[in-house]
């Protein structure tokens, strides 16, 4: 029979392991609730994008950067939960308000950002298109793109675990 001391040691060990696991899980969840705003690694001129500028790039109020190079924002499909979370976090509008906004802009000759079908397609397009800017979950970021901003979502807006994350080390 193990001594009382040994039993306490085992219980303590289990608690430590469980606590560490919980912290890891929370960290992973926190990681999954962030959105990386990416540009091509070849766009050396763009290191960061402030929240106000990011919003205006996606609302097509700002078309070129301070050096005169055109921005090409790309979106995920409207039904994407990541897009909905991005719209709330970066633009501050629900999809319904955004739809009204784009109807009014359409009348003024301005069209919404182009839509790409998946996060992998966003990374691929941004990597090879100077001026392109997109958003993906952090696990999709590759060496060909770099994150100019990390958006942290409030707990209530957390995304479900990214089942489609590519099988490669998270950067």
């Amino acid at each position: 029979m193990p001594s009382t001391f040994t039993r306490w040691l085992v219980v303590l060990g289990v608690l430590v392991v469980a606590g560490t696991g919980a912290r890891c899980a929370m960290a992973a969840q926190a990681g999954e609730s962030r959105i990386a705003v990416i540009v091509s690694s070849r766009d050396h001129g763009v290191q960061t994008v402030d929240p106000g500028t990011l919003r205006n790039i996606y609302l097509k109020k700002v078309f070129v950067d301070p050096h005169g190079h055109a921005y090409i924002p790309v979106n995920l499909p409207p039904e994407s939960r990541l897009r909905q979370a991005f719209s709330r976090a970066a633009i501050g509008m629900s999809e319904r308000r955004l739809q009204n906004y784009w109807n009014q802009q359409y009348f003024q000759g301005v069209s919404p950002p182009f839509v790409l079908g998946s996060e992998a397609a966003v990374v691929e397009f941004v990597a090879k298109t100077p001026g392109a800017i997109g958003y993906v979950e952090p696990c999709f970021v590759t060496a060909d793109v770099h994150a100019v901003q990390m958006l942290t979502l409030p707990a209530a807006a957390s995304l479900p675990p990214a089942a489609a994350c590519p099988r490669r080390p998270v950067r």
Partner: protein
Amino acid sequence: MSNPRRRYRHYADLLVWGLAAVLAWILPAGAAAADESWQAQPYQLGQGLYFPQQSLRVGGYADIHFYSLDKHRAALSVEDLSLFLSRDIGTHWKLFSETELGDALVIDSQHATTKDANIDVERLYADYHTRSGITLRFGKFLTPVGQWNLVHADPLVWTVSRPLTTTGSFSRHASGAMLYGTVNLRQNDLDYWLFADDSKALAFTRSHNLAFTDYGASSTLRNDFQHAVGGQFLYHMLDDRLSLGASYVRYALKTPRQQYRLTGIDFGWSGRRVEFSGEGIWRTADSPQVPDEYGGYVQAVVPLPRHLYAVARYERYRNSLPSQWVTLRTFGIDYRPESGMSLKLEYREGNNNAALAPNGVLASIGVLF
């Protein structure tokens, strides 16, 4: 345009501009032409049809209006059929045109007619994105005074009728150059428009800038710019839920040939249960013989269940020719089953309004396509 030589010149100008526009639309796209990665998006009502290889978007809007007004025969009108063409050329240039077929068919209890049909180039301009927050525009564009004039298409506004304040005292279009954009000010956006108009030299289409456009309006007063300079600022606050705007234009009209100064203010507030908006203008003439013209409206929109909206508007407008106060009260209901589509029914009544916007019932169906 009774003079045959002037008419010939008008059509020749239209032809030249039309040819230039056609060439610009059909030539291959420039350096930043659509990459193969840019796949055509499925068509969506209210966003036009996009052709990626040409970087061309084709769309527009159409609306049918019905009106039954005091001392006027009830009628149905194919009011607007507008075609938008928008094309990116490279990464910095964009062309946009809106060609409108107006009053294509009017049907009343006695006959159907197309005699009032008219075709006009409402807008035709080129935009050049110079640097962050600054875009240059050249051509014919909407005059930046208030928000209604900039977004006036039937499917995008809440009522069939248009407030007098948004048409009565200035030209709805300008031809010339404009500088516009958005800058960040104290964590909020400030939109600005600064323009110079020389319609006397540049206007290439017959103008339709009637001062009072509502059904039953007996006034034939026109507001065609000769020259104008002005601008507008619009400051957005509270995550775009509140906007405050101000505009100023100094201009000369063709007839009556006068110099005017116009000052305008506008606001919009969007809450969960109600949306308020309003505009006000005040126009003075250099000549003391011409009375001041001023007015404004306040409009409230309340969302109801099943895509319905209740709308109420109150407007007071003091016209200069004839010099009198007009009061209008408008109550309506708007059904928006999906984005880009609107069905409206409204009742309008007022005081001293018979000549500009008579009492009665108006309805419309509008689609942005």
